[in-house]
């Protein structure tokens, strides 16, 4: 049986769409998951008080957590699809870095996190880094 690899490299727009799908589903999942974990509290403290079972119970009884996991699962399959067509050294850093920027925006808007100048500057550096990665 012969193993057939990707025939030709995908076009710019198709590659961008694959990375955008990973970023959007991942950001939604991460914001929902972060909101869930903040509502649960410090897992290390819960584990010290109630053991590992208590920590697992605290997580799996939070509905918001499953909403986040659902979107992260979508992001996972979008990543598998992208990896089938693009190089890992492009997909992984580009999607991770863009997710960083979209999460900074979503974190400020939805999670009310203090995204200060330091964090915005980091987002700008990452944007330039992503441009260079995709260039």
């Amino acid at each position, binding site marked *: 049986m012969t*193993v*057939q690899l*990707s*025939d030709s490299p995908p076009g710019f727009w198709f590659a961008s769409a694959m990375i955008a799908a990973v970023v959007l589903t991942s950001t939604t999942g*991460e914001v929902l*998951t*972060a909101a869930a*974990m*903040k*509502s*649960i*509290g*410090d*897992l*290390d*403290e*819960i584990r010290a*008080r109630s053991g590992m079972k208590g920590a697992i119970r*605290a*997580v799996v009884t939070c509905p918001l957590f499953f909403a986040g996991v659902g979107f*992260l699962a979508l992001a*996972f*399959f979008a*990543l*598998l699809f992208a*990896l*089938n067509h693009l*190089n*890992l*050294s*492009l*997909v*992984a*850093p580009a999607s*991770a*870095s863009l997710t*960083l920027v979209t*999460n*900074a925006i979503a*974190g400020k808007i939805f*999670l009310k*996190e*203090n*995204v*200060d100048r*330091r*964090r915005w*500057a*980091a*987002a*700008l*550096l*990452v944007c*330039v*880094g*992503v*441009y*260079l*990665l995709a*260039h």
Partner: protein
Amino acid sequence: MSRHSLSPHQYLILGLVALCAPLGDTCLSRGMTEMRAITLAHPGSLIAAVFTPWIAAGIVLLIGFFASYLTALSWADLTFVLPATAFGNVIVALLARFWLYEPISLERWAGIALITLGVSFVAQGPSLTERPAAETTPEKVGTR
């Protein structure tokens, strides 16, 4: 306390987040590039891919990543955890170059360097947003 500093145990958790994710991604890439090209016309192929050895190994590593990631999110901001663990991008580049033999141009190396600089920048700040006392009720931190 105006600045939320981290304990060695918490740095260890962040280190696991940074390491497990790129190792898992690399395993996934190795598995997916050995498969036939998957098209939108046959999405079931993605499900079958889950049961191949490299993809399965990648999934195990990503489960380790997720457990440590959830722990980190329980005591730090999302906008702190993600940048602080983005050093994994450098690990991905090194694995891609020396394990998968993928070419990495100077531009990509420069991009990775800038990302790392951004990570170090944000990691020096506080890990958790200060909240007014009224927002952190006993119920919110899990005490009954």
